[in-house]
């Protein structure tokens, strides 16, 4: 009996080990690193989709605080003409040590990518000329409709903007 329990535990531990490993790998492939050149097209699609693009970082207190509201919005419109992209501005070196574990731990469903573009003065104005560079900051657009906000959003505020843009 005792050896049976031992065997069971052994198998369970091995299974746990592999499932954890598989999970990390699944998340690993989910966070892509892009430079600005490759990221920029995501700011200028005209395919009738509502894009909500949020600039954040794992160490940014107000960014982390507003993430559940963004996730809630993403869940509300997941099957609609809607696309959310959470653009991490963490350092590239923090991808595996911070960003991927964070995404896994918080079980983030929206697409996460890491923008590696340290020459920020060269691209901040291309996101929006009124952006000072502080995060969080969010772009919401659909075709010609475009809105930018430096600072936090609540679910209520996001939904007020997004709801009228969703196709019936």
């Amino acid at each position, binding site marked *: 009996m005792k050896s049976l329990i031992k065997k069971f535990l052994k198998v369970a531990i091995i299974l746990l080990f592999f499932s954890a490993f598989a999970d990390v790998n699944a998340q690993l492939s989910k966070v892509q690193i892009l430079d600005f050149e490759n990221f920029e097209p995501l700011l200028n699609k005209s395919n009738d989709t509502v894009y909500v693009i949020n600039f954040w970082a794992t160490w940014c207190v107000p960014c982390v605080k507003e993430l559940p509201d963004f996730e809630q919005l993403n869940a509300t419109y997941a099957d609609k003409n809607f696309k959310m992209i959470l653009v991490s501005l963490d350092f590239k070196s923090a991808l595996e040590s911070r960003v991927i574990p964070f995404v896994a731990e918080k079980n983030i469903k929206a697409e996460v990518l890491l923008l590696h573009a340290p020459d920020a003065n060269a691209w901040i104005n291309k996101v929006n000329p009124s952006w000072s560079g502080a*995060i969080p900051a969010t772009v919401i657009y659909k075709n010609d409709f475009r809105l930018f906000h430096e600072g936090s959003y609540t679910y209520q505020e996001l939904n007020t903007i997004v709801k009228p843009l969703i196709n019936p």
Partner: protein
Amino acid sequence: MKKSFFTLIFTLLISVASMAQGYKVGDKAADFNLMNTDGKMVSMADYPDSKGFIVIFTCNHCPYSIAYEDRKIALAEKFAPLGYPVIAINPNDSTIVPQDSYSNMVKRTAEKGFPYPYLLDADQTVFQQYGATRTPHVYLLNKESDDLIVRYIGAIDNNYENAKNASEHYVEDAIEALQQGQNPDPDFTKAIGCSIKIKKS
């Protein structure tokens, strides 16, 4: 009644507008009197022989500020002897980010041996007056007939992640331009930074 209502709205609009704007290049900068990490108060008036100041809004917790710590030290070591000392100011409210408390500033100063004052903007008025929105955020001031004129606003250089990969050294170039009697070009740059944490009223 109606008149006072409009006056109120007007005053509100003006105050919001001035809060959001802060200084632009060419504006006259005001002095401040803030506590350093040695417990002493520091003003720019304490430096009668300086030619200007590198005022940097920064803090303890922000990874961008930390990434620039050694570069701030290098700026101070290079330019203080040439008449442009660095003055660092922490504008954050520590009830929002405890790591940015005064005692943690004292600790960080001891760890890094900052060769410049590291001041606390305790009532959060100085950063609003200057118009800083993030850390780090640099205001280069130049002394011109007893006034301090803002001559550059923005980033230290163009690579927050790695000093060695920076190809533009904005603050150094700006000071060198001033030394030659020219206006810096560029005189305004942007950078990613941590938003300044404002006390909730």
